[in-house]
C-alpha cells in the first residue's frame, strides 16, 4: 500500500499519538506517530476502582460520610430536574451507592454500614476527606458522576473516562450490536479494517474490537489528544492493543491510503445544534468537552462530512453507522445518502434506540 504524506495530516505532529505499529497500516503513518510521540505528557488518570486500597476508615466514620452525602442528595429533590433536566434525588442516591462500591476494597461490607457505632475499619481506595470533596463537587458543581469515579460502565465493559473526555452514552451501546449483526455472517467484513471516528474514550472501538475476527482491525481516531490517550488506555486494558490503532487527527485526515478499503465506518460525532448547547443539563454543558458535543448550526456539520468521507473510504459492501440527534437528523441524512451521494450507498436505514427515538443511520457501500 502506498501512502503519501499530505498536509492534511500535519495536525498529528503537534499532538502525541499513542499506538503500536501493526502490519495492517501503511508504514508512513508509523513514522508520523513515532516522530510525534515524544511529546507525550498526557497520562490517563487511574479510575477509582483500579486504585490500590491504601486508605482506611472506621465503619462509623464512613457511615457519617454516607449519611451526609445522602442528605445532600435528598435535599436536591427535583430541583436539578426542574431547572435543566438534571438528576433527581433517586438518581443521585443510586450514584452514591456506586461511588461507595468503587471506593471500597470489599463491597460485601456495604450492608455493615447500617450498623451503628461499628468501630472496625474498612479499606478504601480513596481517603475519606477526598470522598467528602468529591460528593460536594457532584452536588454543588454538578460534576458528572463518571468523572468522580473515573469510569463508565458501558455494555459489559468498564471504560475509564476523565474530565476532558466525552462520557459514553447508553444509546451508543447499540452500535456494537448493529456491527455484530453485520459481521456475524460476513467473514470478509469481520476480518477487515474498521474505523471509529471521534472515538472519545474508545467505547465503540473496544466494543467492536472484541467481536471482529482474528484478522479484523480497528482504527480509532480522535482530534482530542486526551481522548486518544484514554482510548489507548482502554484498548490496552482489554488486551486489544494489537487490534486497535489509536490515531490523533481529524476525521478521515490520517486515513489517506485507505480509500475504498475500509470494511466499516462508525461514528458518534458531535451532533448537538450549537444553539442548544447552552440549555444542556449542567453535567453535560458545563463539564464535557464542547468539541464532543457541538455539531454546528443544525448539528449536521460533522455528520455530513462523515457521509461524504464514507462514500470514498468504504469498500464495496462496506458498512457504516452514524449516531444522530434524533428523527430530524436521521431523515435528513437518509435523504442525503440516497439522493446526493450519487448512488454510493444501498440499504440505507434508520434504527431507533432503546427509548424508541430514531437514533442511527446505517447502510452499505454499494457494490460496484
Amino acid at each position, binding site marked *: 500500500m502506498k501512502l503519501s504524506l499530505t498536509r492534511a495530516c500535519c495536525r498529528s505532529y503537534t499532538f502525541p499519538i499513542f499506538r503500536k505499529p501493526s502490519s495492517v497500516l501503511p508504514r508512513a503513518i508509523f513514522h508520523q506517530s513515532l516522530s510525534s510521540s515524544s511529546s507525550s505528557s498526557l497520562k490517563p488518570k487511574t479510575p477509582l476502582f483500579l486504585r490500590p486500597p491504601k486508605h482506611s476508615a472506621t465503619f462509623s466514620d464512613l457511615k457519617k460520610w454516607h449519611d451526609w452525602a445522602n442528605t445532600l442528595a435528598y435535599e436536591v429533590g427535583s430541583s436539578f430536574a426542574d431547572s435543566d433536566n438534571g*438528576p433527581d434525588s433517586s438518581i443521585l442516591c443510586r450514584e452514591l451507592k456506586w461511588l461507595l462500591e468503587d471506593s471500597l476494597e470489599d463491597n460485601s461490607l456495604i450492608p455493615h454500614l447500617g450498623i451503628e457505632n461499628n468501630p472496625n475499619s474498612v479499606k478504601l481506595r480513596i481517603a475519606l476527606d477526598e470522598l467528602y470533596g468529591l460528593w460536594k463537587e457532584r452536588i454543588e458543581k454538578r460534576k458528572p458522576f463518571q468523572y468522580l469515579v473515573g469510569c463508565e460502565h458501558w455494555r459489559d465493559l468498564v471504560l475509564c473516562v476523565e474530565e476532558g473526555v466525552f462520557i459514553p452514552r*447508553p444509546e451508543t451501546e447499540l452500535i456494537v450490536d448493529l456491527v455484530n449483526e453485520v459481521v456475524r455472517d460476513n467473514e470478509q467484513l469481520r476480518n477487515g479494517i474498521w474505523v471509529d471516528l471521534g472515538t472519545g474514550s474508545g467505547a465503540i472501538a473496544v466494543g467492536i474490537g472484541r467481536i471482529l475476527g482474528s484478522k479484523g482491525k480497528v482504527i480509532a481516531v480522535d482530534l482530542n489528544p486526551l481522548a486518544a490517550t484514554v482510548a489507548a488506555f482502554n484498548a490496552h486494558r482489554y488486551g486489544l492493543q494489537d487490534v486497535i490503532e489509536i490515531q490523533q487527527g481529524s476525521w478521515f485526515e490520517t486515513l489517506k491510503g485507505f480509500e475504498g478499503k475500509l470494511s466499516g465506518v462508525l461514528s458518534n460525532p458531535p451532533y448537538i445544534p450549537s444553539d442548544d448547547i447552552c440549555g444542556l443539563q449542567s453535567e*453535560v454543558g458545563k463539564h464535557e468537552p464542547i468539541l464532543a458535543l457541538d455539531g454546528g448550526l443544525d448539528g449536521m456539520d460533522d455528520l455530513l462530512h462523515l457521509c461524504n468521507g464514507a462514500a470514498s473510504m468504504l469498500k464495496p459492501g462496506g458498512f457504516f453507522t452514524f449516531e444522530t440527534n434524533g428523527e430530524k437528523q436521521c431523515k435528513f441524512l437518509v435523504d442525503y445518502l440516497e439522493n446526493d451521494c450519487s448512488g454510493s450507498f444501498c440499504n440505507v436505514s434508520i434504527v431507533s*434506540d432503546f427509548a424508541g427515538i430514531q437514533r442511527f443511520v446505517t447502510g452499505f457501500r454499494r457494490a460496484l
Partner: protein
Amino acid sequence: MALVAQFLLNFAKFGRSVSHHNNRSSLFFSCNYSNNNSCSWSKKNFVELTDEELIRQCEMGTFKASGPGGQHRNKRESAVRLKHIPTGIIAQAVEDRSQHKNRASALARLRTLLALKVRNNVNLDTYSPPPELLQILPPKSTIRSSDVGPQIGPNNPKFILGMQALLDLIFAVEGSVSEAAKLLGLSTGALSRLILSDDSLRMVVNELRTSKGIKPLK
C-alpha cells in the same frame, strides 16, 4: 433493521429478584397461537429458548423517553423494560450500571417470570418427571437415579427449568404438596423444604394454595 437488534448477552449474574407483573394469575398455554410467528413459538417451551429467540419475542423499551437523549443527557438512567409479546409478561431492570447489563438482567428475570407464570398441561395418569425436574430434587428422592447428577440449587440458572416443571405438577395436583411429593418419590416434608428454598417458588405455590383454600407453606 429491527429495534431490538442482535444482542451479545453476557449474564454476569442470574437475577433472582422478580419484578412486577400486571396480571397475578398464571397463564395456561397450550400449543397454538393465532399469530404468524406461531410455528417458532409453539414448538418450544419459552424458558428453553435461547436469549436470541426469547428477545425476538419481546418488545423493548424504557420507562420514559423524556427529552432528546444521546449526547444531551447524563442521567445514568439505563432502565430496560422487556415485554414478552406472547404472554404479556413484563420484566424490567434498572439497578445495573450499564444498559447492556440491565438488558441481561431483564432477560434473566423474564425467564424466571415465564417459569413462574406460564403453566404447561401435565397428564397425571402417565406422569413421569422430566430430567430438569429430577435435577433439582434432593438425592433422597426414590425416583431419582444416580446418573441424574448432583442436585441443582436456586443459584444455578438451570434451576428455573426444574422449577417450572415442578410448578406444572403442583398446579396439576391443585396445590397438594403431599400428592406431588408422592409422584416425585419424596416425603411431603422434603418437597416442602425444596419449595421453601426459593422465595419466588414459595410465593407462587402459596398463592395457588391460598386460592384453593389450602394453608400456605411456612
